[in-house]
């Protein structure tokens, strides 16, 4: 065979090798997206340390609040094997509604904080004995300033759950009541914000704020009989609060208040990974430091993203990164910078191509394992004939 044909074949094969991935599990990162990745990764990044005394103070705060509904000394208790948290459960037949307008009573103390002028927000406001360095200005009583509400006698026992971890609090009454109408969104959001802020469950600063608030409805679609129209009704509104730091979302911080719209009774209260920060102690991460723990350049980040999409999204025919969202993630130590990517992805299926859009996240300051560090090694299933 003439050598020039061999060269042509080799050239075609070479081109083919380049082209084949583009027609198979192609991951497209458009140039404008790559540019944004480059820009974001080139910025000097910071970690913002958590204000750690607040971790324990939040726990005291929650314990005080939930004591109005559940007796933790009598409740059943289960310690999670996987997560650093404990669940308490109690069945009750008599309950006092917990209202959005409820306020924890604060009692002022005479001593003042030591150490000079401190930001009133960064300074802990609730007394916690576990952290001696945290000088408290005020403390919470064990009692609550409850609105005068009548206790309800239930026909059947109701389960109350309280789950608690260092940065994880969940209170829930497993109960539902049919609502006539939803609470107007703006009213619900304002009441919810007041509840969170006035009771210090969330402490806003100029940089650390409540971001978007979603109002989700839980509904029941109830059958009325074989030949009758079903009835669809609202049973709960959940106010979901996002957190923003410096205008960027903190992906895993979340507060949710679930209410009965008619009575504004709180039946669900979740507070995850929303710890006040020591904003004055931000830690800069130089590109050199970053390189020692992680891939840091724009192209390296893009490679990590592609690998991740391929690993988790399997047999797709096409994937395209549509958007880059600079964001934060709260670890047990600090807020760390991450990039979230909106990805459009397409799959083959017996019913024709399917597509969806989803989020993928890359840690700019280290390994992605932090996103779910409790996860154990995955075992693959067995093939059975």
């Amino acid at each position, binding site marked *: 065979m003439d050598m020039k044909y061999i060269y042509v074949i080799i050239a075609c094969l070479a081109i083919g090798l380049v082209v084949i991935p583009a027609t198979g599990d192609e991951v497209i990162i458009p140039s404008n997206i790559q540019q944004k990745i480059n820009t974001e990764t080139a910025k000097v990044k910071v970690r913002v340390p958590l204000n750690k005394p607040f971790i324990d103070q939040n726990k005291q705060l929650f314990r005080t609040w939930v004591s109005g509904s559940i007796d933790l000394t009598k409740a*059943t208790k*289960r310690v*999670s*094997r*996987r997560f650093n948290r404990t*669940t308490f*459960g109690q069945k009750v037949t008599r309950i006092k509604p917990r209202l959005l307008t409820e306020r924890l009573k604060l009692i002022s103390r005479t001593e003042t904080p030591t150490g000079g002028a401190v930001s009133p927000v960064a300074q802990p406001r609730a007394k916690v004995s576990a952290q001696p360095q945290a000088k408290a200005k005020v403390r919470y009583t064990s009692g609550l300033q409850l609105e005068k509400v009548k206790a309800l006698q239930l026909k059947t026992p109701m*389960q109350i*759950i309280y*789950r608690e971890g260092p940065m994880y609090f969940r209170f*829930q009454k*497993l109960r539902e009541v049919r609502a006539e109408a939803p609470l107007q969104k703006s009213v619900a959001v304002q009441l919810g914000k007041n509840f969170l802020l006035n009771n210090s469950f969330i402490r806003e600063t100029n940089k650390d704020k409540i971001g978007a608030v979603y109002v*989700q*409805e*839980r*509904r*029941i*679609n*109830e*059958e009325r*009989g*074989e030949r009758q129209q*079903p009835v669809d009704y609202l*049973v709960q509104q*959940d106010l979901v609060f996002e957190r923003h730091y410096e205008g960027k979302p903190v*992906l*895993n911080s*979340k507060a*949710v208040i679930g209410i009965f719209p008619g009575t504004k009774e709180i039946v669900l209260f*979740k507070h*995850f990974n929303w710890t006040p920060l020591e904003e004055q102690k931000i830690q800069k991460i130089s590109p050199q430091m970053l390189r020692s723990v992680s891939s840091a350049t724009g192209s390296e980040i893009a490679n990590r993203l592609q690998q991740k999409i391929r*690993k*988790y*999204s*399997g*047999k797709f025919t096409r994937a395209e990164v549509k958007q880059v969202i600079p964001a934060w993630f709260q670890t047990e130590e600090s807020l760390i910078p991450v990039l*979230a990517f909106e990805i459009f992805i397409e*799959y083959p*299926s*017996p*019913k024709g191509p*399917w597509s*969806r*859009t*989803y*989020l*993928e*996240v890359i840690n700019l300051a280290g390994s992605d394992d932090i*996103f*779910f560090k*409790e*996860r*154990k090694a*995955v*075992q*693959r*299933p*067995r*093939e*059975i004939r």
Partner: protein
Amino acid sequence: MSCKFKILSLTLVTLFIVFGGHELQSINWSSYIMVSGMGSVGEGAGIAFYNLDTNPRQEMILMAYDAPSGANNFRYRIGWNVGTNGRAVSWSSYIVVGGVGHVGEGAGVAFTNLDSNSRPEMILMAYDAPGGANNFRYRIGWNVKTNGHATSWSSYIIVGGVGNLGEGAGLTFTNLDSNSRPEMVIMAYDAPGGANNFRYRIGWNMKTNGYATSWSSYVMVGGVGDLGEGAGVALANIDSNPRPEMILMAYDAPGGANNFRYRVGWNVRMNGYATSWSNYTMIGGVGDLGEGADLALVNLDSNSKPEMILMAYDAPSGANNFRYRIGWNFDSFEISREDNDHQFVGYVSNEESRFVDYVWGFVDEFKNTWTNSQYYWGQCRFLGTGHLSFADSADLAYIAGHGSPSYIVMSSGQGCSLSNKAWGSYSTSGRTGDLEYIVFHSCQVLKMDSGWRGRWRRYYSTRNQPRPFSGLHIAMGFRTNHYNGAGAGSWAADEFAENLEDGFNVRYAWYEAAEDARWLAGWTGNKPAIFYIRPHKYETIGGHNSQDYRYGDSQYLLDAYYMK
């Protein structure tokens, strides 16, 4: 056609639509029939049928273990010639037989023929409760005459008990082994702290003197509640297998009205053990307080299937009375043969590795609480032709793969339509389907468009077609697309397992897990939906053995709990 005829025709058509069109296969239960009691305080009661006189109709014998101050005594009445409607033509006044102690925690009555005389023997038993361990004590009324009186009574015979506290007891006779002499089965509803359990002993090959050749140690069967006010045992063959079934019943006493709960032990072997036990079936009770209860199987009508009679000795203030209900034409199809293990299965589509993450996330956590019996790469037959060996072999199935409304891809190229599948104890005529809960960790499988109920439950027009809710309690998934995001999928799976372990009801356990994980998925999709048969609305995994429902049951109503 006259106006009256038109109205009659219309009424008949309406009645056919309302009743005749449904698959009314459930046992038809009578309301209760009351018979005067024989005292103010009872510590056990029993019921038995036997033909004592020359009339071909059987007699019903109702017995109470009366508990005045001092020594107890047995008292029984005979209902002569019970008609096809379950009512006796007349009732005798009560007959007193000396008791066997001062305190009883259950009692029973049975007839058999022990000696060579053709007249039957009546055996009266009480579960005597001195301080410490209880014991069974029975007396034999030899050769009961046609007037219902025994020719003579034995002194009592003691058999070791099965615990320190009983809340009911019963006895019956049968022949389990190849020896022609009958076996005597005595049972107590033992009441330790917490849940009760049934405990029975077998007296092998009863001799003509009324003593057993030997006694088995006790066999324990899970109970049906925490508090009982009577219990009974019966043996009969109700299926096509030649071995008999054992029925254990307790009169459960929650706060408020009582109810009867029974379990069926299928095909009792020659060693006295059942091959498997059904979940319990619950039948409405006859009052708030019972001082004894029992059951009997007898054929009263022309249908070849027996009737089940459930009786309680009701104890209002003042004099007690017997109250019994008749379950007409008792059929093995009425009893679920689900097992009582706590098993779950996990199936994974091979299309994406994240599906492994989802199912493993659940399997890895939940296996601490229940037993994982299968963890396989998915195949359509697991939900379809092979469901009894796969999804329906366990109580909970967790499945991940690409989905669309009532459709899931179980593996590459194996798209699986779900609307023509049936799961749960009513999915087959043998009632062997076990599945109560199923999770589709997939996009849109539980989409709530206008036709969703028609795909999931049976209606009159589809009553003969398979549908997923055929005894299934709860289906869970997403009504929208599901995004994994930065781990929302595996996070939700883990949380679901944790929530179940923490006592959330199943419906909430899924909703909360899906909701908790939404922060990782960008908020747009991942909206959970849960479809459930209404009586299972608040069910936790501890209640997975509760009664199943199917088309034709009045409570077969499919509701949805969902995020808008």
